[in-house]
């Protein structure tokens, strides 16, 4: 999809190159992309295709080598450190593949840690209930299953009430059933609460739940596919 002035997110000719050890990796090559407000976008592609890089750039935790990343009409590439921090704090909810929970804090505390960052967070228990973890809130990450840990990570992202939810392989570490439940939670957040969701995965079976499917290959957009009737995640199989 070409850049669109009405879009919430616009990537304009974005390239990203970084060094990994002694290798120079061209993660993205002049990628352009638009995402409208309230959309659920699934970014598909094999390993090394640049999926996570797009998420990191939109999330303000990485900067492109060239190009513009416009969110809500503002090029966040021009942000300074303080503005980027505020941007991440107020607007972004991250869900990582490896959960990245703090092992020395309980599930509730992991969520509250993020809640402390914003002025009007959602009530922690409400968010934990929403992801089905009300009963397990007092447990430490080490005492939770992978699916439960991922739900804590989603609750942590949601508690700040961010308009944009970025999920990096949220089901990558989970079994099919748990993964499907996580996708249901994400679907509800998108449809029920109207939040924009960018979901990165290599699992093409997830694509049907998206409003927009972006396929990447070797750092370029291979295809863009709009889906006028997204499927219910409960019906997904893989």
């Amino acid at each position, binding site marked *: 999809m070409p850049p669109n002035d009405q879009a919430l997110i616009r990537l304009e000719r974005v390239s990203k190159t*970084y060094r*990994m*050890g*002694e290798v120079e990796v061209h993660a993205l090559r002049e990628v352009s992309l638009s995402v409208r407000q309230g959309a659920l976008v699934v970014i598909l592609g094999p390993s090394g295709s640049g999926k996570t*890089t797009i998420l*990191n750039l939109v*999330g303000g*935790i*990485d*900067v492109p080598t060239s190009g513009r990343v416009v969110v809500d009409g503002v090029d966040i590439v021009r942000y300074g*450190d*303080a503005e980027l*921090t*505020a941007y*991440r*704090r*107020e607007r*972004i909810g*991250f869900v*990582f593949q*490896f*959960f*990245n*929970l*703090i*092992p*020395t*804090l309980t599930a509730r*505390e992991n969520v*509250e*840690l*993020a809640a*402390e*960052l*914003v002025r009007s967070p959602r009530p922690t228990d409400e968010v934990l209930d929403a992801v089905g973890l009300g009963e397990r809130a007092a447990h430490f990450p*080490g005492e939770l299953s992978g699916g439960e840990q991922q739900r804590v990570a989603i609750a*942590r992202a949601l508690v*700040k009430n961010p308009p944009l939810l970025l999920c990096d392989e949220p089901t990558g*570490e989970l079994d099919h059933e748990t993964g499907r439940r996580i996708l249901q939670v994400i679907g509800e957040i998108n449809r029920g609460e109207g939040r924009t969701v960018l979901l990165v995965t290599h699992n093409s079976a997830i694509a049907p739940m998206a409003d927009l499917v972006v396929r990447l290959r070797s750092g370029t957009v291979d295809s863009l596919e709009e889906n006028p009737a997204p499927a219910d995640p409960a019906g997904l199989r893989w």
Partner: protein
Amino acid sequence: MSLLALKLVRDLWQSRWQYLAVGFTVMLGVTLYGATYMSYGNLDASFRHSYDRLRFEDFGVSFHAAPERVAERVRRIPGVRAVEGRLIEDVVIEIPGRSTKKLIGRLISIPSDRRPSVNDLLITRGRYLSGRTAREVILENSFARHHKLRPGDAIEVERAGARARFRIAGMAMSPEYLYVIRSKQDLMPFPDSFGVMFVSGDVLGPLVGKPGLISSIVATTSDPGRRPAIMQEAKRLLDAYGAEEPVAREDQPSHQFLEQDLTSFRAYSVLFPFFFLSVAGLTVYTLLMRMVRLQRPVIGMLMATGFSRRSVVVHYLSASLLVGGLASVLGSAAGFWLSGLVTRFYASFLSVPYIMLVPRWGAILVGVMIGTGVCLAAGILPARAAARTSPAEALRAEVPSSGRVVLLDRVMPGLGKMALAWRIPLRNVFRHPRRTISTVFGVAAAISLIMVSQGLLDSSEAAMDSFIHDTLHDDVRVEFATYQDRGVVNGVRGIPGVIWAEGALEIPVEFRKGDRTYSALLVGLEGSSRLHRLQSEGGERMRPTEAGLLLGQVLRAKLGVEQGDTVLVSLPRTRSEQEPVQRTARVAGFVWESIGTVAYLPLDRARQLFRADLPLPPGAITGVRVKADLRYLPEIRERLLGLPGAGAVNVLADFRRMLDDMLAVMRNVFAIMLLFGMALAFSIVFNMITINVLERSSEVATMRTLGIGRWKILGMITLENALTAAIGVCLGLPAGRFLVSAFIEAISTEEQMELFAFKTVVYPRTYVIAAVAIVIVVLLSQIPAVTQVNRLNLARATKERVT
């Protein structure tokens, strides 16, 4: 409590052993700093306080003999606060019932009806003198203790063939004999041959044939600025009585020695803590840096969630600050407590009358600031570095570099064919340069810490052994109270059990070169002396030479002379109204002796030098040195004591014991440093190894998942740690040796050299002990971490990066 603070507390708890070890390292450094620095402060204050309480002299003047009333004339000099006139006589004394206890006693008169207004005594046992004519003495404390004398015991004074018996009224400390030496030239207290006692002037005068006379005044002044003028005025008043140059407090022998000792102590109190804190600081830095690096993904997550860089840095700094602050406070408290022990120990050794133990808040504050600052500095760089990386990068796994593997494989072509159990550890050493370097540094630092203290102990022991065994070859020696003829040596050679005997002449003199003067002992030795072997600094044998003086290293430094120079040699007890008796002598060479500030001449040359000025008989000697069959030693001692004019008989074994006592403070300081060094070394190694193992949690978990047994993994970890430790040991041993030399260089001030000079000697056993101890600690340190890694949930550890 904020959640970040809660996280901090729980993180600290989870890694409590590592943080404890880091804190312990800092605490040791701060404790050592506090203990030594505060001890120095305490001792300094104790001496000053004791001097004030006992009204220690500001100056003194000795003269031949003068009526008691001259003291009153000195008192009238403006600026003089108090004056005490005393008669001082050195006599031979005997302790009844102990036939071998014959020695030189210095009798000093004190008022019997009041306490001295200058140089008062602190009575430690018994009482003060009871009456003007009572035959009572007060013994100087250390002398009484050495001979186990108590109030009520008797002591006999021999004077011109007559004997007088005194009863001991009490024991006391005197500010002018806190360190009991006969003169400036005698650098060591020898309670077996010299003691000080105080007696009523009304008894002493008649006893020594000088009734109503005094031979010294000591005075205090009210205006320090006028003191030089007052001293000169006092000298002018006393010139008619053969006054010597006035001696200011700073030049008073006991005070001067104690000041020198304190100066040396101050050098230790700065150098050791500086070294220890530096090592502790560098180690804590590497440890915290690695610990923070392990937290990179958490830092990435926190920043991705919206925490600012500042709050992330502050969060990680808080851990350093908390550990550093707490450890510093505890270290300062421990340092204060330890300073009390050190002060008491030192004070008891030197008989300091009043001990002042005051918390030195300045030193405590500095200790807390240093300890905390070290941790802050150690924490700030890695925390800032971690927070500076982009969150995305922090979240990404670190990529091992591969180039070094290629390099190693090139150097070791057979590496690829080796068993994995060897290949992996060998490659790991090169693949993780940061880990390898920090471990090598830690092990090298630990070895150095042990070696510095043990090397100093070795060096002091070697210096002592060299003096006792290489320089002195006599077993027993007799010192005469008056000059004797060398014919006595033949008599001594005839005593059964005597293998060899030699005469020696010792004259206290003052050497001068330009504007530099120094008091020392001129020793005349037989040219072919078998019992006193002189050595050059390089260890070559030297002999007294007709070519001139052989000067010890202290004299060389003090006078700043070189071979071939000419120095003035004068008798120090020169009467001021006369031309000073002085001779010139050429410096023929230099000798190295650990103890003593001595110059050597052949016996005859020494006699010739002052024959015209001293009542020296043609073959004058002041002592005989004897090599003996030790089975006959008691009999030989008896016979030597019976020689005419025999003042004291010293056995080398007792001399060694006295040397040990004299060096006890220094050696104890080294021993304490060794304990600290070992504790610090072990905590450093423990930390390094623990982190080494913990850093590899997921690697170990992966290997176990693949089915590699625990013992095999332990073997690989051990091999890698042992390899790095071996590199550390190889670097640490020479570094330790170098540091011993540097330390000896740094503490070998002129003050230190006057007391005890030593060269760098590190015994082979020290290398072995240090290396073996560290290797054992390396191996033992693996246990807790390996146990922890073995308990890992394999599924989680292989998947999760944040554990």
